[in-house]
Each structure stands twice: as C-alpha cells, then as structure tokens.
C-alpha cells in the first residue's frame, strides 16, 4: 500500500481531492472486508479508514455505534481486523480508526508494530488529545505509522496549531460540534476551520463528520484536501451488501462521490 504522503502528493499533482471512506471492520462480517475494500477502490476511494470496533464509542453517533455493536456481536477482535487488512492489501492507504483502550490493552508498541506489519499507513484515535498522546506519538513514529489528530470547531487557535503541526498523513477537521453521523447539510463552520488549519501547516486537511452526499463532498472539497464519509457508507453496507451482492451499485455510488471531489 502507498503511504498517505505519497497518495496526497499524487492527488495534488493531478489537481484532485481525496475521497476518504470509512467502514467498520466486522460489519458486514470480517470475511467480506477484502471484497468491500476492493469495490471501494474500484469506485475511486483514495484512502480507506477501517474502524476497529469498541464497546463504548463516545465519539460516534447511532449509525456507527450500532455498526460497532454488530461487529462485536459477530466476535470481531482487533487481531482479526489486522489479519483481514493483511489479506485485503488494497492499493490505497488504510488508516485504522478506533478508541485508545483497544490499543492500550495489547500495549501501544505491540499494537503499532502489528498494524505496521499488516500494511496500515496511519491511525486515528477518537478519544486521544495531544496532551495524552506523547506515548502514542513516539511509538507510532518508531513503527513508521502516521498519527492523524482531529481538529474541532471549538479548538482554540493554540490547539489548532498544535494539532496541525503534530498530525501526520493528514489533519482530520471535524465539520461540526458533535458525533459522527450523516447530516442533511454539511456544517458552515468548516470553511473557517479548514482555512485556519491550512494557514498553519502544509499537511493535507480532510473534513469529516456529517458528510453523506455528493453535494457535501463537493462543498468540502472547495476548501479542503479531501472529504471523509463514514456513517452513510456504513448504513449502505448494512442494508445492501449481501456477500458481494450490491457490488455494482456500491461502485457506482462511490464513483459519484469521487466525481464530486473533482467538481
């Protein structure tokens, strides 16, 4: 898999923005993950976030909560997720997204090394802030994995600067105060947030939370380097993906989203 830096550099060279897609590992069942990732890449995904399910996902809205619970009910374990990623080896970077305790439990170093061995390019930890991230930053740097930090609409300028300068791979700009979940409208605070971040760093800035439609993607890509779509896709897969059935529709839907990044 290419690195996040290579991917964003290549997109920039082509004048494109990134389509970042999130799927919960284990929902649908983990053995479907390679086929799903392949379909997402065929549709035009540039980066894929693979969610490691956690029992108490405080940053997630109802869709990803329910999805995480289904994945856990199916017996999905972090080690199995890494195995599935190893097997899938998509041609775009994979970023793990999850919560700190599932990384802390096996030991940060062991987690980072196993993730690296699986080909993972970066990690997003929903419940870690820079003040608590020293250990993780050291360990991930040593393992050669990017640490993507989140910037929020409520972050102070000092905090934004810290996030912008410490985030590697990309900076994840949260579009609104709130948890993950599809929204009717993309937030209007986001242009200011992205503008501030881009004035502070050359690291690409992608926007997530509440983005579900091509028009949201197009709006976000006016200012940011990419758009992240999670809940909408999680929902779609839960309703329509049956052992590969629905694949053509999925590819078409992702193509429409990718086209919106170019609009």
């Amino acid at each position: 898999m290419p690195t996040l830096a290579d991917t964003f550099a290549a997109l920039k060279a082509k004048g494109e923005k990134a389509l970042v897609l999130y799927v919960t590992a284990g929902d649908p069942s983990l053995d479907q993950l390679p086929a799903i990732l392949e379909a997402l890449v065929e549709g035009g995904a540039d980066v894929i976030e693979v969610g490691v399910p956690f029992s108490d996902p405080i940053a997630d809205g109802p869709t990803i909560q329910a999805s995480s619970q289904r994945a856990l009910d199916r017996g999905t374990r972090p080690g199995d997720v890494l195995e599935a990623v190893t097997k899938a080896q998509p041609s775009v970077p994979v970023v793990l997204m999850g919560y700190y305790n599932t990384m802390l439990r096996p030991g940060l170093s062991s987690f980072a090394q196993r993730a690296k061995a699986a080909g993972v390019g970066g990690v997003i930890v929903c419940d870690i802030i820079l003040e608590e991230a020293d250990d993780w930053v050291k360990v991930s740097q040593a393992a050669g994995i990017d640490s993507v930090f989140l910037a929020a609409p409520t972050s102070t300028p000092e905090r934004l600067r810290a996030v912008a300068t410490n985030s590697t791979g990309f900076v994840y700009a949260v579009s609104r105060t709130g948890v993950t979940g599809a929204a009717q409208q993309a937030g209007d605070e986001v242009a200011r947030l992205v503008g501030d971040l881009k004035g502070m760093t050359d690291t690409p800035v992608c926007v997530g939370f509440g983005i579900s439609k091509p028009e949201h993607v197009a709006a976000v890509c006016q200012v940011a380097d990419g758009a992240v779509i999670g809940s909408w896709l999680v929902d779609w897969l839960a309703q329509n993906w049956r052992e590969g059935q629905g694949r053509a529709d999925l590819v078409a839907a992702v193509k429409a989203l990718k086209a919106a990044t170019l609009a």
Partner: protein
Amino acid sequence: MSAVLPTSGRFGAFGGRYVPETLVPALDELEATFQTAWASPEFRQEFDTYLREFVGRPTPVTDCRRISALTGYVLSAKREDLNHTGAHKINNALGQALLAMRMGKKRIIAETGAGQHGVATATVCALFGLKCDVYMGEEDCKRQELNVFRMKLLGARVIPVSSGTKTLKDALNEAMRDWVTNVRDTHYIIGTAAGPHPYPAMVREFQSVIGTEARAQYLERHGVVPDVGIACVGGGSNAIGFFYGFLGDQTRLIGVEAGGHGIETGKHAAPLSAGSPGVLHGSYSYLMQDEDGQVMPTESVSAGLDYPGVGAEHSFLKDTGRVEYTAATDDEALKAFRWLAENEGLIPAFESAHAFALLQRPGLFAPGTRILVNLSGRGDKDMERASQILSL
C-alpha cells in the same frame, strides 16, 4: 489557596483526559471556573448556604447501639441518607449547578444509574431554573421507575438509553455524546468522581464536605477519630468525599465494591477488586475489560454501583495501599439491608448496604473496633425491588 487540582489531572498514573478534541475547551473552562470559584470566599459561602438551607447539612453521625451490641464493634453511621433527595449526590449536583451558572450555561445534562444523581440534578435545576435532560439506561428506568417519575415531576426530561448494556455506562456514553454536540450552551454534571479531568478532583472537593463533617463530629463525640472508615464504591464519589476527611489520620479506610453474584462468577461490578487499568469515559483507571480492551458487562442488584469503571483517585489510593478495596455480593448486601432496618431503624440504599455488609463477616475486625460507615443514601428508591426479593 494552593491549587486543588493537579495540573496534569493525574493521581499518580491514573486520571487524565481521553476525550474527543471538541470537549477540551469546555473542560478547560470548567477547570478554570472551578479553580476560581473554589478559591473564592463568596462562592464557598454561597455553596455552604445552599448546603445548609436547601440540602439540610450538616447531616448527623448516628451511633448504632444495637448493631454495636450484636457485633462487639463500636459502630456509627454518617447520615448522608438524610440529605434532601435522599443521598450524597446533591452535594456535587449543587456545586456543579452553581458553576454552570457562573459559566452562563443554561442547559444541564446528567447521567444516572439508580436515579439518585438524576433526581439530585433535576432538583437543583428546578431550584435555579435550569433546563435539565437526564440520560438513564432503559434497564435502570425499569429498575427505578419511581425515580424516573420524580425527575419528571421536577421538570426534567428523562431520556432512556437503549444502546449497549442499557445501564449506567451507556447513559454516560450518551450524555458524553450530547455534550460533544451541545457543548457551547450545555454543562454536563457528571454524578461521580470519574470522567475526564477536572471531574474527579472537582467532584471529590464538592463531596469532601462528608468527610470533613464526619471527622469533626466523630472527634467531638468520641474524642478520637474512628479506627475504621467504610464506604461503598461504584464510581466512588461518596467514598472519596468520605475518605478525604481521614486520609491524614491513622484510620483504616475500606471501599466496598459490588460483588454481584460473586467475584469468582465474573458477574459483578468490582473493577478495583478484579479489573485492570484502562481508559473508559475519559480517564485512565481500573476497569472491567476483556483481553481486547472491550468493556465488560457488569452485574449488581444496585443500579448505582452497576458500573465497570471507577474514579481515578480510587485507583491511585488502591495502588498506594492507603485504602483497601473489597467487594460484597448481592446476597450480603441484601442481608445487611434488612439487618440495618430491623436493628437500627435505618433503611439504607442497596448501594450503601454493601458497606454495612462487611460488619456481618465474622472476625473481620477486633472487638471494640471503632467503625464509621458512610450511609450514603436511603433505601426508599429500592422499596419496590426489595419487596420483590425479600419475603417478609
């Protein structure tokens, strides 16, 4: 006055802030507001006045003569059950509501397990005219129907939580999500000494009135501090407030967790007795988790102790050895519940009954040992459940 909050928000290795970035400015604002208020004589006076005139403090220490005669100990109880709304919870709810008003926040959210914290929060919101939404697990709504009604009567909205295990942990998750979404105009009154910094230290300070009063009252009556202090521990707010009065003394301090069906069955809510450190609800502390770091389901007859985590300072006090932690099973707690009612005319909350359960274990303390137990809440809320379990 020196800072009461460690700047790192840590108690040894425990505590910290593991939260979405969105919440950090609100936690910073809360910390700053609390620091300023707690150092301000005007705020202290305001807090004390409400504690006296609205809550009914100080609560007495009652000597338990019949159980003393039965056990050979010298037993007394700190009567937090006599607080307005029936438990210690209102000390903290009141303090945080006053802070919320200082921050100009007009909407309050809270989580509740047994409903005591929800009722306390709804009560102070009615007192001050604040909008109040309380998250409560669906399972707990069923277990504590009466408290749901009380909250509604007090003008609060009760939001049943159907995710996860449908108990306190999930109510906390849902309250956190609400706070992340509405952080600009909402204050989250966490009901226990857990959660991200500054909650554990702030809640302890608001609850330390228990230990401060108890020590002075005990000393005045008995001329010495107690040999042993006992309190039940769920998230641990009554215990930390009570223990805080005695940390500098020789008093042996014991926290009693919910042993559920027994520690050996795995069906309990005793992270300090049988868990390991991890991150839940914004803090690094002992936790009931599986080998992948997933939080495990808990089991306890008492909704207020039915929680897989515990306040970070308890983890610190366990590891330093200053406080001992043990667990009492559902059966032991129910036996103590009835024992205290029949022999002292005191009906404890199921939670508080866990603390008294230790006194029934033969030979745990030497005869004549002076023991002070924190009777953290009254059992009115548990009457319906008790009438189903106990055949009288």
